[in-house]
């Protein structure tokens, strides 16, 4: 059995996991994340990050169907786990041999070494680390020995436990005003959830998932089929109604801090909806999207500020149309010269456009008019009669209204003739033209609509913060927005919201991420492309395109009737 003695895979994945573990340690991630407890006194986020490398390395160390015996599989896991620990042990030894290591590697702190050695000193600590990583590797390898019926509930339970632990701080923030102190003390430790809570969540999640796969799913499916279409429609309406009601009362549940976060997420959702039209619907890759956001914000700032730079000094509501129109015009002005460009060339030019706007804003040339690096202060707040929008909760509803409007417009456009034109344009420009589609107006409509939403987002952004500075409008915003619509699913409206929650909301809530946000983006984009190239919540067209072979049974209702003619 030549195959069963072949450990090359275990060695390869073990080393990869080791390098990953070493990198996340040496850049300071493990230490930074160590302050967040997931399960009080048992597991921190830093440890989770560190140990998951060995688990995953072990999981990949062998594959079913290669003639590997169970014992062989566990052995491979052990090898992978030990190899994961080896680079870390080297790091520990290195700190002893070379006390000045921090001159070169700033983040290799004594605290990090304490985490790696479990506070047990160099020798004992290294040994413990080797053992722990080895065991984790074995567990990772053993996971694939289980049947899928056991794997899924286990994974589900683990994810719920870790997820709730990770978000315990936020849950506490929400629950505190409503719940008795004693109950909270029982559920949550100083930081994170208590071990008992963790076990309860795990068991519950496993049980629910096991029941669902065994019985519930089938029963629900049977009920769904048995339901007459009218009831199904009513039910769907009811669900949407409940969802809207939930979104409306959310600020009262969440409190000021979380509402603030929701405002940031909402601003990105609004921008995402706009960029989704340009990139997702029409297939025009725009990397300078932040320019329209900046234009919307600056027009709002200049028109409503009480400061020296103010022109007009009009109210928020009077200035809002100007912001949107200015951004729309900028969208058309950008659109005209790039009408004949495609793909990469278009991306480069739009990238340049975004930079031009940013450079103009900080330039000395325009400083007397728009404030240069000092920005614009004292921007007006929206006001309805005597009620002034000040709190994050107030802006929450304003942003929500903007998002709903943008989502409604996107949805109607997508299903109208214009949406068809965008789709044809995205698929093939030449053929689209041969079908009688005007490319000029189709492209300009995409740029203009996308820019309008971004301008609206910018205007609200400026008013919410009361002051704007050029550095808020850098390339990173464009990249953030693009990343979130890709992760959410290009061309999908719910995808934009999911993408914004994952890429903007999570890092905002888990403040430790802030420094590593871009790393997280990169990692998430790669993982998404590998595991779910269609995005987290894809549009039907993209899902179909990427999973054609599995589509036979679900595409019935999607393509049955002749849709959106006329």
């Amino acid at each position: 059995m030549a195959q069963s003695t072949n450990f090359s895979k275990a060695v390869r994945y073990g080393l990869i996991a080791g390098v990953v573990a070493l990198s996340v340690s040496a850049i300071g991630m493990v230490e930074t994340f160590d302050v967040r407890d997931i399960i009080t006194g048992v597991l921190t986020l830093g440890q989770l990050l560190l140990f998951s490398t060995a688990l995953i390395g072990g999981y990949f160390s062998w594959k079913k169907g290669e003639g590997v015996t169970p014992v062989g599989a566990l052995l491979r896991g052990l090898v992978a786990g030990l190899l994961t620990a080896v680079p870390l042990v080297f790091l520990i030894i290195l700190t002893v041999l070379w006390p000045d290591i921090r001159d070169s590697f700033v983040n290799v702190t004594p605290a990090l070494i304490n985490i790696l050695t479990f506070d047990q000193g160099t020798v004992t600590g290294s040994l413990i680390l080797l053992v722990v990583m080895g065991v984790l590797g074995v567990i990772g390898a053993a996971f694939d020995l289980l049947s899928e019926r056991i794997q899924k509930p286990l994974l589900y339970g683990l994810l719920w436990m870790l997820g709730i632990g990770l978000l315990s701080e936020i849950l506490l923030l929400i629950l505190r005003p409503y719940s008795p102190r004693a109950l909270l003390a029982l559920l949550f430790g100083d930081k994170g959830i208590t071990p008992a809570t963790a076990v309860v969540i795990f068991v519950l999640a496993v049980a629910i998932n096991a029941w669902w796969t065994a019985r519930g799913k089938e029963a629900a499916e049977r009920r769904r089929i048995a339901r007459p279409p009218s009831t199904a429609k009513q039910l769907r309406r009811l669900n949407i109604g409940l969802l809207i009601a939930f979104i409306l009362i959310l600020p009262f549940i969440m409190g000021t801090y979380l509402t603030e976060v929701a405002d940031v997420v909402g601003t990105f959702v609004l921008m995402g909806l706009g960029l989704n039209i340009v990139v997702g619907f029409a297939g025009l890759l725009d990397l300078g999207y932040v320019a329209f956001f900046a234009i919307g914000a600056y027009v709002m700032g200049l028109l409503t500020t009480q400061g020296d730079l103010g022109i007009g000094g009009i109210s928020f509501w009077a200035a809002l149309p100007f912001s949107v129109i200015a951004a729309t015009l900028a969208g058309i002005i950008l659109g005209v010269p790039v009408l004949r460009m495609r793909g990469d060339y278009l991306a480069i030019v739009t990238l340049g456009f975004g930079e031009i706007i940013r450079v103009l804003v900080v330039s000395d040339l325009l400083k007397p008019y728009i404030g240069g690096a000092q920005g614009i202060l004292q921007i007006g707040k929206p006001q309805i009669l005597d009620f002034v929008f000040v709190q994050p909760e107030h802006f929450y509803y304003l942003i929500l209204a903007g998002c709903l409007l943008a989502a409604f417009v996107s949805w109607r456009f997508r299903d109208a003739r214009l949406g068809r034109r965008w789709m044809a344009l995205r698929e093939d420009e030449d053929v689209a033209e041969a079908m009688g589609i005007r490319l000029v107006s189709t492209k300009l409509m995409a740029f203009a609509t996308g820019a309008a939403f971004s301008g609206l987002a910018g205007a609200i952004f400026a008013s919410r913060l009361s002051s704007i500075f050029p550095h808020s409008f850098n390339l990173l915003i464009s990249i953030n927005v693009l990343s979130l619509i890709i992760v959410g699913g290009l061309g999908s409206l719910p995808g934009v919201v999911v993408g914004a929650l994952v890429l903007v909301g999570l890092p905002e809530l888990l403040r430790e991420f802030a420094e590593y946000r871009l790393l997280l983006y990169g990692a998430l984009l790669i993982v998404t492309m590998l595991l779910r190239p269609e995005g987290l919540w894809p549009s039907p067209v993209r899902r179909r395109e990427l999973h054609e072979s599995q589509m036979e049974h679900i595409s019935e209702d999607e393509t049955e009737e002749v849709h959106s003619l006329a």
Partner: protein
Amino acid sequence: MALLEVNNLHAYYGNIHALKGISLQVEEGEIVSLIGGNGAGKTTTLRSISGLIPPKPGAITLGGEDLSNHKAHELVSRGVAMVPEGRGVFAKLTVLENLEMGAFHRTDKDGIIADLNSVYELFPRLAERKKQLAGTMSGGEQQMLAMGRAMMSRPTLLLLDEPSMGLAPVLVEAIFDTITEINKNGTTVLLVEQNAHMALQVAHRGYVLQTGTIVLSDSAKELQRNPMVQKAYLGIE
């Protein structure tokens, strides 16, 4: 008056004089074939007619109207449908969606559904595969789809660019049978083809194009008998 009239048409690619003043007519109800070797200017002629290469004023008239100022996308609503070389179907859309796209400029829902059914009659294969992604079909099926899609705009004049390219002989035969059928249903066809043998079999008249000039024009039957055509294009010594 001819449906389509081309008078002294010139076209340039940079310094290359690709079309050196060609003239041809297509009468209503005809199938006209434009045959010629590689680089003779067949596709350039079609691209000029469809507006992808702007012609000189007066060079091309459709039903008596000058086409020099018209953009490619406007031709569809004027009753001209083009099936581009290499088929050009929307690979990531389904067959049905592709066909719907062909009727893009129309708003008569009943008429579109009727035409959809007649396209399915013309190409039963498309009806079987209406939910399949166009890009996953065979070359012949994609050619059928491209032709079906062109028919969805209910054209009076159908421009076909190399419909037999890259297809198996059996399929070529089937495609040309369909061209005859489309024509019998009342659509005028201008066909550009390297496969002179098939093109002259279905056509009423033909033009032979050589390095940007028309060297011969006659009825298809006469062309098939012409010794020069036999030697150069039909492979008969």
